[in-house]
């Protein structure tokens, strides 16, 4: 079945949403927004969704959102990073060895440096799967995957998801390991394009997007996003464009 990378990732993220939980994504998050709405349409009708800068946001200020995470009431958070390393650290600040003269400067962490520790589960996603995005060590730790056991933390990263593979976070070791490989890619593809050790010698295939997932994404979710002006231009352009 044909689908594009954004559709695949929205479907993979939707599978992480649990019914009855509060699940959220941050600003500039069209793929997780689609994933949240897809989950609500398919298997999580009673999930509370928080999609910032949309009508799916119960809050008036960012402080109100951050305190939901501080309280440990946020079940799932989706976040991306320019760089992600095997320790579950992500970087949203800058690229380059010298912080005073970065090669590239990014907007920074928003509240991720708190939400990453407050949300029960965080799934880190990345639309680029290369050695420059999945690195041995991030240039700047915007949020840390692993912390000592005596540090107060309600949750931690559970997965990293790209358009080629899923990685699972081993909480005790504090390491990401390759979990499943998406249809169309091989173990060698993943090894060649990942800047850190995969932790395993082989991995099974990720279940392909089902006809129901794709149909719901392209019809129900696409319509909802357009009707509610939630990343409407992206939804119109991307969902169903395979």
């Amino acid at each position: 079945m044909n689908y594009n990378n954004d559709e695949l990732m929205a479907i993979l993220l939707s599978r992480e949403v649990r019914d009855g939980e509060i699940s959220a994504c941050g600003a500039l998050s069209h793929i997780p927004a689609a994933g949240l709405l897809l989950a609500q349409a398919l298997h999580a009708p009673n999930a509370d969704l928080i999609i910032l800068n949309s009508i799916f946001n119960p809050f008036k200020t960012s402080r109100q959102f951050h305190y939901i995470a501080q309280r440990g009431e946020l079940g799932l958070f989706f976040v991306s990073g320019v760089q992600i390393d095997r320790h579950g650290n992500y970087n949203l600040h800058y690229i380059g060895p010298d912080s005073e003269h970065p090669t590239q400067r990014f907007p920074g962490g928003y509240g991720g440096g708190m939400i990453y520790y407050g949300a029960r589960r965080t799934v880190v996603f990345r639309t680029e799967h290369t050695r420059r995005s999945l690195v041995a060590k991030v240039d700047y730790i915007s949020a840390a995957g692993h912390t000592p056991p005596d540090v107060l933390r309600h949750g931690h990263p559970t997965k990293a998801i790209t358009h080629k593979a899923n990685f699972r976070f081993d909480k005790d070791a504090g390491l990401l390991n390759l979990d499943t490989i998406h249809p169309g890619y091989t173990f060698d593809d993943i090894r060649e394009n990942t800047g850190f050790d995969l932790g395993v010698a082989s991995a099974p295939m990720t279940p392909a997007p089902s006809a129901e997932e794709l149909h719901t994404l392209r019809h129900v979710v696409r319509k909802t996003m357009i009707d509610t002006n939630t990343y409407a231009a992206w939804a119109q352009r991307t969902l169903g464009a395979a």
Partner: protein
Amino acid sequence: MGVPYVPIVGLVGTDLLARRDDMVIAADPFDGKTKSVVAKALRPDVAVFHAQTADRYGNVSCGYEAEVVILAEASRHVIVTAEKIVDRLTDKEAKGAFIPTIHVDMVVHAPFGAHPAGCAGLYAPDAIAMREYVKASQDDATFAAYLRERVFEVSDHDEYVERFVPRSMREPLRETGS
């Protein structure tokens, strides 16, 4: 606000924490064990921010929910610029975040005082002017020139509005009598 410090779930292990001496990892004073980050309170000498409406007594209504309330509560002095100054804010006019006069030292009438950013409910950010700002801020020399042109060599706020706020942004507002 005005508290001495605030504990936070998060930030442990980040490079942000590594670079700041106003945030430390401390044990929970109640159980003596659990560690979290404690951030020293910021205590600004002066806070300056923009709101929709203020009154002659110094009460301020932001017009929308905003975090500036805690900024006003934390700062020693507060100066508020406002789109509109009324004689006395009524409960009906006081929409969104409200800052009582007890925190406020000065209110200043400054229509389009948020430009080139926007003022929620009244005008959107000026996209062209924002792009000029971003471009100018790429290096120190162009940013210094930007500040010279738009801040230091402008005699007052009226001149700024006249020269830098596009007429298309101004006219619809004037018609509504603000």
